[in-house]
Each structure stands twice: as C-alpha cells, then as structure tokens.
C-alpha cells in the first residue's frame, strides 16, 4: 500500500511512531465512515503508488503572486529558501520552519499533536506521522503582523508524491496575524497534499486563515484547520476551492472561553470532475461564544460538491449563537451537490440558524439580460459573480478580499 511505502522511507521519531499507530487503529477512511460518505479516500490512496516528496526545489519556479506579503514557499517537502521572503518581520514575531521548532520544543510540539483526536481526524493523525516540514509562526502579546504571511505549497516533478506539511499559528493575547495558504501543482502525476494548520488563540487574539486551492486535475488536497480560541479571541477563515481533482476541507474550531468567536467562510467554483468535500465542526464549549459559517458554490459539468458543517452547542453553556449557511448553483445537469448544515444543541439558551439551497441560474433573469443585448455568456457570468460575491462580503475589506475574488475568474469587464 502506498501510504505504507511512504512511511518506510521516513525517519521515525517516537512521536511519529505513535501517530502512525494511532492512525492504523482505524485505518484509511472509507465510504462506510459517515464523515467520508462521499469521498472514497481509501480507494484513491490505494490506486496510486505515491512516494515520499522528492525534496527537490527550483529557484526559478513561479506562482501567482499575492500582493505585499511575507512569503514561505514549501516545495516537494522542503522549504524553498530562495523564494521565501521574511525580511522586515516585526519584533515579537517568530516565523520558523517546523523542523526547527520540533527540535527546540519537542514537548510543546507533542502537546499540539495530542490535541487532535485520531478517531475523528485520521488525516490529521497521518499528518503528524509524516510531517517534517511546515511553518510555525508565533506572535507575541499585543503584536500585529503588519502584512499577511503567504505560505505557498508547490508540488512538481515526475513522481506521484504524498507531501505533508504541518503549520502552527501561536497567537498570544491581543495579537493579530493573517495567514494565506495557496496550493499549486505543476506535476502531471497525482499529487496528494496533506496540510494541517493548528491555531491557538489566546485572550483577545485575532487570526485569519485563508486557503486558496487552485484548479488542477492532478492535485488532491486534504486541508486541515484546527483552532482553539480563548476569551474574546476571533478566528476568521476563508476557503477558496477552484477545482482540484480532489479537495477535502477538514475544519474543527473549538470555542473554549466566553466571547470567543469564529467565522468560517468559503466559496468554490468547480468544473470537470473536480470533487470538493467540506467537513466543518464548531464546538461551542463555553457560554457567550459565537460562530458563523457561510459557503457558496458553483458546480459545472461533472463536478461534485459536499458540504457538511455542524455547530455543536455543549451542555451547560448559555447565550450561544451559531449560524450555518450553504448556497449552491448547479450549472449543469450532471453536476452534483450534497449539502447538510447541522446544529447539535444540548442547552436551551441559544440562537441558532441554518439553511441550505441548491438551485440553478434563473432563466427569467437570463432572458431579461439577453433581451437587453447582453450576450448569454456575459449574462451567466454576471449572475455567477453576483451569486458568489455574497460569500466575499464579510472579507471585502481584508487585505486578501479582492485578491481572493479575482482568483475565481468569473468577473468580467464592462
């Protein structure tokens, strides 16, 4: 089996050994698992002979730029130092490769790994077994990172690789950081990218995590985002899915103290045979916690989408509010969307709302626009843009808002 082949070539540490064994308690997810009902990862992983990343980096490699950011480029399992740019980091911000962090802080690292339950997050556990590289960013109290940190994952070369990165964002009280992750592939072989970002937010910290997954027929991306929020902390995430061959979004947010909040937003535009499965959990573990989930998607051709988001309001909490929304448009009869926003409530004093829609472009509206001389394709793009734009409303004023929206490619010039 390919995953085992990769394991054989890695350097095992006690921590990785433990994760590896924990992973095999349940094994690879199959469709029999409720959380993996629509995504047959076991079959996919067994169908390809993945190898460990080649660790080859290319100084001349290019990727679509993100305006004005610190950059860390992770290519084929290695940090590409030539393309990374961290000059000017403010005092109080430490940004370092994961390998260095593990070496210096083995106990702390173990603590982060143990925070994730292997039974619920097999791919995060597999990440802990394999991860040798990634980015660790630690922001001291009251420090604000003056521009986003852009972490770019690049896969290239002639072999099918299983590449794993583990990032940690450690935000001390009242600090603020924006992390933008992008995944690009230039290889014509299947590339399984398993990334995991764990975020701890201390009192009053603000962390924004943006994940941009590019359109690619060979990219298989398992994206993990786990957060732990203390009093008055705020986590804001945005996941943009542009149509990887396989995308899986595993987000798990813990609101652990009063007035912690989390906003999970996202948009996707899928075509071809792209498959994108969102799996989001929000744990309201304390009173006065707030969450808001809003994803919008367009699905064309034979694309398949899954949205499963659940807010869990724990027993004994009060004054919790949770919203869960997902809206989709199918642009072709062969496209498919499975959506299920859920609320699981074990207390009385809550304000919760959820809703989902799956529709089509409105023919009456298209006719109206065409009857004014607007060509069909432009009329469709106008409506697609309008539909998706709502998902971006909450991040319009953010440094990545316009950039993200432009990546969609549905905009048009008048």
């Amino acid at each position, binding site marked *: 089996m390919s995953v085992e082949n990769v394991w054989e070539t890695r350097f095992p540490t006690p921590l990785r050994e433990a994760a590896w064994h924990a992973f095999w308690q349940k094994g690879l997810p199959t469709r029999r698992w409720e959380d993996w009902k629509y995504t047959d990862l076991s079959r996919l992983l067994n169908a390809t002979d993945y190898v460990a990343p080649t660790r080859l980096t290319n100084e001349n490699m290019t990727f679509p730029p993100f305006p004005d950011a610190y950059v860390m480029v992770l290519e084929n399992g290695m940090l590409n130092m030539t393309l990374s740019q961290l000059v000017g980091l403010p005092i109080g911000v430490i940004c370092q490769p994961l390998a260095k962090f593990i070496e210096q802080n083995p106990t702390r690292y173990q603590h982060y790994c143990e925070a994730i339950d292997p039974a619920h997050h097999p791919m995060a556990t597999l990440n802990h077994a394999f991860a040798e590289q990634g980015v660790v960013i630690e922001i001291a109290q009251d420090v604000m990172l003056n521009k986003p940190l852009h972490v770019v994952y690049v896969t290239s070369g002639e072999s099918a690789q299983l590449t794993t990165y583990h990032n940690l964002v450690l935000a001390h009280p009242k600090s603020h950081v924006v992390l933008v992750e992008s995944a690009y592939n230039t290889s014509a072989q299947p590339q399984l990218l398993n990334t995991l970002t764990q975020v701890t937010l201390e009192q009053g910290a603000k962390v924004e995590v943006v994940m941009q997954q590019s359109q690619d027929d060979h990219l298989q991306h398992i994206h993990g985002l786990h957060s732990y929020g203390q009093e008055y902390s705020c986590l804001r995430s945005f996941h943009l899915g542009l149509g990887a061959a396989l995308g899986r979004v595993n987000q798990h947010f813990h609101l652990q103290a009063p007035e912690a909040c989390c906003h999970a937003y996202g948009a996707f535009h899928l075509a071809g045979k792209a498959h994108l499965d969102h799996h989001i959990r929000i744990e309201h573990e304390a009173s006065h916690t707030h969450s808001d989930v809003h994803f919008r998607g367009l699905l064309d051709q034979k694309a398949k989408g899954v949205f499963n988001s659940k807010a869990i309001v724990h027993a004994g909490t009060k004054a919790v509010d949770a919203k869960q929304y997902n809206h989709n448009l199918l642009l072709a009869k062969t496209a498919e969307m499975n959506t299920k926003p859920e609320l699981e409530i074990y207390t009385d004093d809550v304000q919760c709302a959820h809703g989902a829609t799956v529709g089509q472009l*409105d*023919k*009456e*509206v298209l*006719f*109206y*626009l*065409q*009857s*004014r*001389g*607007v*060509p*069909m394709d*432009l*009329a469709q793009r*106008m*409506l697609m843009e*309008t*539909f998706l*734009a*709502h998902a971006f409303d909450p991040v319009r004023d953010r440094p990545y808002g316009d950039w993200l929206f432009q990546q969609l490619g549905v905009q*048009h010039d*008048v």
Partner: protein
Amino acid sequence: MLTINNLHVTVADKPILKGLNLEVKPGEVHAIMGPNGAGKSTLGNALAGREGYEITDGEVLFNGGSILDLSIEERAQSGLFLAFQYPVEIPGVNNAYFLRAALNARLKAKGLEEVDAMQFMQLIKEKMKLVGMDKRFLSRELNHGFSGGEKKRNEVLQMLLFEPAVAILDETDSGLDIDALQMVSKGVNHLRSPERGFVVITHYQRLLNYIVPDFVHVLSDGKIIHSGDKTLALELEEKGYGWLTEGAAG
C-alpha cells in the same frame, strides 16, 4: 421596418398566435389592444425570442432580414427592444453596472467603441432627467425593491439609452399612477422620430391619450381582427370588444 406575416406561436403545445399580420413602418406608432388571453404578451415575448415560445409558422422580418434565427441578444442588438410588463428583479446586480454592460454589448456588436464609466455617467444623467429618476437609482440593485412605477421608468430609461429602431411596450401602463404614466409617456414621446417604430400593447385607452398612435389594432384569439386609427381606441373604451369578437366568431 418590422413585418410580421402569418405568425403562429405555440406555448406549451397550445396555439396562442394564429396567423398574426402586422407591418410597422418607420415613424409609426401601432397600438395593440384586445381582451385578456388574446395573445398580446405572447407577441412581445415571441419577437424577443423567449424560450418556450415556439414559432410554428410565419415570418418576422426586421429591416429586411428574418429575426427568427437570431438569438435573444442578437435581436436586441439589431435594434429590437421589448419593455417588459413585469421587469424581473435582479438582486446583486448594480443598475448602473447592468446598464453600461448592456449598452457596451450593443455598441460592441455594432463595431462601435464602448463607453467608459465617465462617458456613461454623462449619457445616463440626461436620460434619467427625462423620466424623472434621480441618480440614486443607478446605485441600486437592478429593479430590486423598486415600486411598480420605478420598474417601468427603468424600462423606459433603458429604451432611451439603447435608442432601438423598434420598441415594443408590453402593458407598460399597467400599475402606474397618473404621474408615472405621464413620465413614462414623456420618455416614449421623446424617442418618437421618423426613423423609429413603436408597438404599444395596452389594455386601456388612457395611455393612448399620452402616446397618440397612428394605428390601433384589435388582437383577439391570436389574430388581428380589426384595425383603425386612434379613434378606434375611444370606440373600444366605450363599447368593449364584444361587437368585434362576436363578429369575428360569426
């Protein structure tokens, strides 16, 4: 300029228009009146090319060529304009953005230079004055939350902006108060010219006091059964359609 010969249109397998003939020459205003269910709105929709309106026989010539093989937008770009009875609301699409997109699509189709935002604003401001709309309309979402009168004014505004060769007004007067009716009529009259034709579909003679037609036709059961000058509208107001439809049936 617009010639409709023996037009037969079926909607959901039901014949609605059953051999309609109409000739609109440049500068003429034709009013089409008729009882409910006669096929008045079907005529506008079929000419605009709406899906589900199947042309089973006949021809429609516009400036000498058939329009029946043209797409909806090609018909519009060639100079045919349909003002809707019920303009749709399009939340999220900014009115100014839509108007400029539509105007530029038409200019582009004609091989003319497109207008930039500045040029557009100058152009649209003049037109808005004519229909009594203030500039706040431009920043609103297209027809979204507009009152009935505002929607119709927005239709006439588009007509003023696009300057079509032939405009078909489908019950543009329905749901309008007297002020709005006068404002809408003012916009239409502003566009009347020796080069432009109008087809005004209406239930009521009242609109024709403001937009005075050259011809009035009675559409009943899918055909024009009677035509006359503007005095026919007054006669219809007085006597109803019975005397004509019974005659046609007999």
